[in-house]
């Protein structure tokens, strides 16, 4: 029997819910609902004025129907009427209805705002809290206009009750987030900051969220909060577990408050005042020390709360990026977590280390864990953890370990989930290019990428490899040879054909001397793939053919034969037809000099930023690619022509703070355009985003069959208690 003894059970509602649950089919359910809706409609329209209890009951029923997933288009007026009732429960239901079914009917909004105003000025704390909650839940502009000036006053008034202050603080926060221009803090600033010193922990908890948000927008006005926050934090951290009474959570003192304080401190640079800074460092060291102590309780809640504070403290240390001692300790702590029993901790450790990896002080320390991370990549059962490991490998990659990391990422790619392959491909491409000392290794890597995950190799990647091959003389022969060998595989990906076609077209002459790769063999190899390819690829191949005619006059007859046949010159695709016809003509009437001039080797591409970085950034959102990487991207394009030493890496990395979002909008303001050439032109727009940005809509392919046949015949909703004593988080 549901909790009737808790009072306020509306009997009609309970009966209705039972009826719905007993419906055997969707149609029966809809029928019952419609019957009820008709009943309620008639009651609302009826002559008799409904008493408060009935109104409350019907409004609640409507709410239930709405939450089941059906649309409700009436009842708002009755809900608004409930607001002006004096009975708490009726008000409560009225407010709940309005919060859930927000309505932009202006008439009602006026009435709602009126009711709220009455409640706010009623001096009854329970009513005031209800009103504040409603404002926070709805947070519309009209409400902001009506109440934005009132709420700060309530917040700082001396006679406001603590519970109301809490609600007021978070309500103001919500209004500020939605309509920042209407919330003017000017005169209230110092009083709000002073709330950090309040006796009541709940008030401090609520006020901090507000202050954190305000500090992010107006750091100067609120900077007095830093010292207050530090002293509050050190009081909590050094308190015994019994001091804070009800604010101790499983033997951890005030975890939420501690984390919020730490997050507030992340809005500011390290404090300049020596005493404050000293106290803060001491705090952080205490937190790090506590992590090494044996736990006070076996419950997972205790360790979660303790570790939540630890991770937040580590975030702060990373943000400051100025205390080498702390950074190294943080790194070691994370290193310990990398091999922890609990998957959650391994996941979070990998995530935190990513940000740690870009700090100059701890970069070396992070690299020492490379074996653990590679092991995680290979052996973790959870795909989200594997993905974090891949991210970390990407972040910790530098000259010394690039070959190893790229090799590991390539082998991971062979078995990776489809949803993350594209991102992995981009990352491997970026790393290969960035750390290539020997460009033949780069070419090998990209061709491997195409071989392993060809479908996910976007255009930017293979454009890039072609750009690089064209610009570097030393690798052209190697590229031609490798591509030739790769094309001989019985089933090779279309992207490979594109790359192969282009490179052989340009540099086939470099390997033509060898009888196994003489011109005719090369042509036959390419042409054998011709009919398997899509139109843009075929267009590219046709251009390669005309280049062959120029490079290898002995193949002219064969190739012209191909161009002349009907499937080319009468091809239904306009582009292909045009190319076939024009190339055929060109080859027949142009003298060798003219032909040589027209089909001269491609000149080196001008320096430009890597569009791959742009694509990765676009995929992951701003902040995913640190400033250092973008600057490196710019610099490395200057090396396409064999530029100088990359001595500025470390400085650039140190200069950037990876945890703040990179102001990258203007660095990559112009997307780099595709090389201007007759090939490779895909019909249609160039640099088109072939893959949409949608996240994994389908579940990853990790469904295994034994999962389905478990738990047969279990009831839909059980009456098992949700909290079972002694059940920890089963691993």
């Amino acid at each position, binding site marked *: 029997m549901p909790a009737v003894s808790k009072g306020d059970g509306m009997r009609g509602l309970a009966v209705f819910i039972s009826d719905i649950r007993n419906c055997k089919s969707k149609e029966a359910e809809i029928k019952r609902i419609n019957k009820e809706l008709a009943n309620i409609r008639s009651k609302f329209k009826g002559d008799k004025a409904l008493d408060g209890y009935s109104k409350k009951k019907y409004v609640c029923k409507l709410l239930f129907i709405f939450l089941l997933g059906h649309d409700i288009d009436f009842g708002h007026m009755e809900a608004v009427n409930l607001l002006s009732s004096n009975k708490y429960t009726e008000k*409560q239901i009225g407010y*709940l209805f309005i919060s859930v079914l927000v309505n932009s009917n202006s008439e009602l909004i006026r009435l709602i705002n009126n009711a709220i105003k009455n409640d706010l000025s009623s001096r009854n704390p*329970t009513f005031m809290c209800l009103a504040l909650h409603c404002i926070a839940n709805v947070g519309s502009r009209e409400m902001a206009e009506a109440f934005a000036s009132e709420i700060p006053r309530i917040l700082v008034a001396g006679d406001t009750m603590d519970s109301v202050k809490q609600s007021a603080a978070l309500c103001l*926060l919500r209004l500020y987030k939605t309509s920042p221009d209407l919330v003017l803090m000017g005169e209230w600033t110092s009083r709000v900051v002073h709330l950090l010193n309040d006796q009541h922990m709940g008030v401090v908890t609520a006020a901090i969220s507000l202050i954190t948000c305000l500090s992010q927008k107006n750091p100067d006005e609120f900077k007095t909060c830093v010292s207050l926050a530090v002293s509050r934090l050190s009081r909590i951290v050094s308190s015994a577990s019994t001091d804070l009474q009800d604010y101790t959570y499983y033997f951890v003192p005030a975890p939420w408050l501690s984390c919020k304080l730490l997050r507030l401190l992340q809005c500011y640079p390290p404090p300049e005042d020596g005493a404050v800074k000293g106290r803060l460092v001491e705090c952080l060291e205490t937190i790090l020390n506590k992590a090494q102590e044996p736990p006070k309780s076996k419950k997972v809640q205790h360790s979660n*709360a303790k570790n939540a504070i630890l991770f937040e403290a580590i975030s702060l240390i990373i943000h400051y990026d100025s205390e080498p001692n702390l950074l190294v300790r943080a790194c070691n702590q994370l290193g310990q977590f990398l091999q922890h029993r609990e998957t959650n901790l391994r996941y979070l450790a990998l995530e935190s280390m990513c940000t740690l990896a870009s700090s100059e002080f701890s970069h070396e320390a992070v690299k020492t864990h490379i074996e653990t991370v590679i092991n995680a990549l290979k052996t973790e059962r*959870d795909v989200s953890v594997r993905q974090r490991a891949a991210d970390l490998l990407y972040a910790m990659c530098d000259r010394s370990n690039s070959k190893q990391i790229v090799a590991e990422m390539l082998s991971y790619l062979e078995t990776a989930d489809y949803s993350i392959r594209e991102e992995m491909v981009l990352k491997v491409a970026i790393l290969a290019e960035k750390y290539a000392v020997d460009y033949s290794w780069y070419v090998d890597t990209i061709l491997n990428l195409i071989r392993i995950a060809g479908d996910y190799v976007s255009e930017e990647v293979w454009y890039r490899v072609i750009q690089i091959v064209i610009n570097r003389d030393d690798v052209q022969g190697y590229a031609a040879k490798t591509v030739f060998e790769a094309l001989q595989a019985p089933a090779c990906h279309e992207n490979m054909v594109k790359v192969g076609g282009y490179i052989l077209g340009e540099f086939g002459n470099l390997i033509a001397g060898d009888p196994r790769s003489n011109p005719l063999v090369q042509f036959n190899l390419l042409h054998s793939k011709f009919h398997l390819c899509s139109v843009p690829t075929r267009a590219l191949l046709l251009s390669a053919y005309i280049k062959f005619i120029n490079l290898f006059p002995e193949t002219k007859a064969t190739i012209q034969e191909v161009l002349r046949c009907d499937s080319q010159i009468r091809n239904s695709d306009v582009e292909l037809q045009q190319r076939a016809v024009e190339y055929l003509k060109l080859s027949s009437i142009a003298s060798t000099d003219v032909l040589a001039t027209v089909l001269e080797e491609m000149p080196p591409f001008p320096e430009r930023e890597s569009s791959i970085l742009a694509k990765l950034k676009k995929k992951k959102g701003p902040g995913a690619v640190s400033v250092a990487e973008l600057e490196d991207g710019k610099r490395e394009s200057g090396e396409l022509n064999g530029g100088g030493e990359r001595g500025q890496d470390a400085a650039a990395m140190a200069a950037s703070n990876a945890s703040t979002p990179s102001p990258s909008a203007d660095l990559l303001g112009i997307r780099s355009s595709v090389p201007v050439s007759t090939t490779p032109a895909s019909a249609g727009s160039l640099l088109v985003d072939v893959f949409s940005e949608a996240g994994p809509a389908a579940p990853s392919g*990790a469904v295994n069959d034994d999962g389905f046949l478990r738990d047969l015949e279990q009831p839909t909703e059980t009456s098992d208690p949700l909290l079972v004593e002694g059940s920890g988080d089963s691993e």
Partner: protein
Amino acid sequence: MRTLCGSSAANQQLERSWVRLRQGKLRLQKWFVPVSEREKKKVVSDMMMLLLFRQPRTCNFLQWKDLKIVYKRYASLYFCAGLEDQDNELLALEVLHRYVELLDKYFGNVCELDIIFNFEKAYFILDEFLMGGEVLETSKFAVNVSMEQADTLQETVEEYMSKPAY
């Protein structure tokens, strides 16, 4: 925090010779940012699909689009929260736990049926605990006192039984 939902775990039934998967039912949903109804439905169904296919013994965190999702299963219910980038995941796990504790304290050995039949109470308790996506009050004692005070303004069991049943 952007959203908090509770949904029943899916039920797999063997009917004749094929297996039918019934998607979980949403028991509780709270949105802390303005989102259109269509968007809400889509997000919920996507999240439920992701959760239902999670293997056992995996971690409680997921990355989905630009949201971090933290979830935990309690008996037949999944509770999940959609977090923004800067939110602390472990703490969110404890937020979910604290919420279930609050429900437990109020209902006494709470089970899914309690949440179905007293859905409005579940929302009221949530309101005492979270506001605008932030933690409002972490003291279990204080929240309980609030709820008790509200309840003293209610009627008694006798009055309840004398109410109409329609």
